């Protein structure tokens, strides 16, 4: 059960940083959820949230939902003991702007995200593949299939 965050705090921080089109809602399971319409604004929004007291970027990951890549950032303020989840949508093959300037914890996670969903990465100090070799498909996209049971038994 996520702990909800004060919306006005977030709204003020995001407005001050000039991040428009950010929708702040309460998700029943995830707690407070900020959805950014423009994925290019992610670094700005995260920098603003860091200034607002969210010290840690806990988690960075993506998901392939309805033909789009959904990048999710989970932030935490240890002093206030609250979480906030920030989310943005990207098209396949789009460019993800790195947030490592404000949160160094995204260093490896962003590389994995881009590699696994076939995105390109800008603004990262070391934008290389992390887990797989060159030429491997972006595995976590829905179109990449796995071996079926029959294929498995055929091989063995």
């Amino acid at each position: 059960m996520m702990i909800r965050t004060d919306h006005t705090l977030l709204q003020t921080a995001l407005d001050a940083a000039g991040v428009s089109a950010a929708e702040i809602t309460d998700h029943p399971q995830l707690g407070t959820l900020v959805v950014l319409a423009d994925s290019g604004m992610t670094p700005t929004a995260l920098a603003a949230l860091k200034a607002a007291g969210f010290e840690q970027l806990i988690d960075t990951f993506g998901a392939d939902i309805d033909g789009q890549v959904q990048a999710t950032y989970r932030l935490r303020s240890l002093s206030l003991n609250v979480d906030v989840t920030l989310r943005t949508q990207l098209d396949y093959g789009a460019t993800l702007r790195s947030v490592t300037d404000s949160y160094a914890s995204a260093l490896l996670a962003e590389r994995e995200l881009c590699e696994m969903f076939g995105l390109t990465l800008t603004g990262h100090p070391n934008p290389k593949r992390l887990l797989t070799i060159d030429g491997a498909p972006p595995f976590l996209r829905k179109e990449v299939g796995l071996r079926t049971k029959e294929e498995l038994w055929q091989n063995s």
Partner: protein
Amino acid sequence: MRGLPTGIFKSLRIAFKNLFRPNMVIQYPKQRAIIPERARWAVEIKPAQDGSHRCQACRICEGACPHHCIKLDITTAEDRSKHIDHWWFDRGSCMMCGLCVEACPFDAIRMGHDYELAHADPALLVLDLLPDTPAYVRPKPARPVDPNAGDTDA
């Protein structure tokens, strides 16, 4: 290294003490560790009272296995009774999660306690657990015995 290095002498004292303590190893091929009742190793057929098997070829275990390491070759006769040709079990890809045993409604299989499963030849890892089933399985089996009341997984 201010003063005397007393810490390393404590460490040495323990080492000398250990020379006179009983050892803590199990000499594997001669002594065996105690295998608990619940230990899960390779899948095996659980024999019924009379030594026969209880498999009704329902294929639930096949569906329950995450790694697809169980495969049943079943022939259905004209009277809709089933005959198990092979009960393939791929020991090499089995991860001993026990889901097939939990799923089995007839209490026909169990997780064995034989843990020396290594083979030099990978072909030997695929076993036929029911190689010579004598007769057709009746089309309508008796009421299933649920082995596990808390069983929830498919």
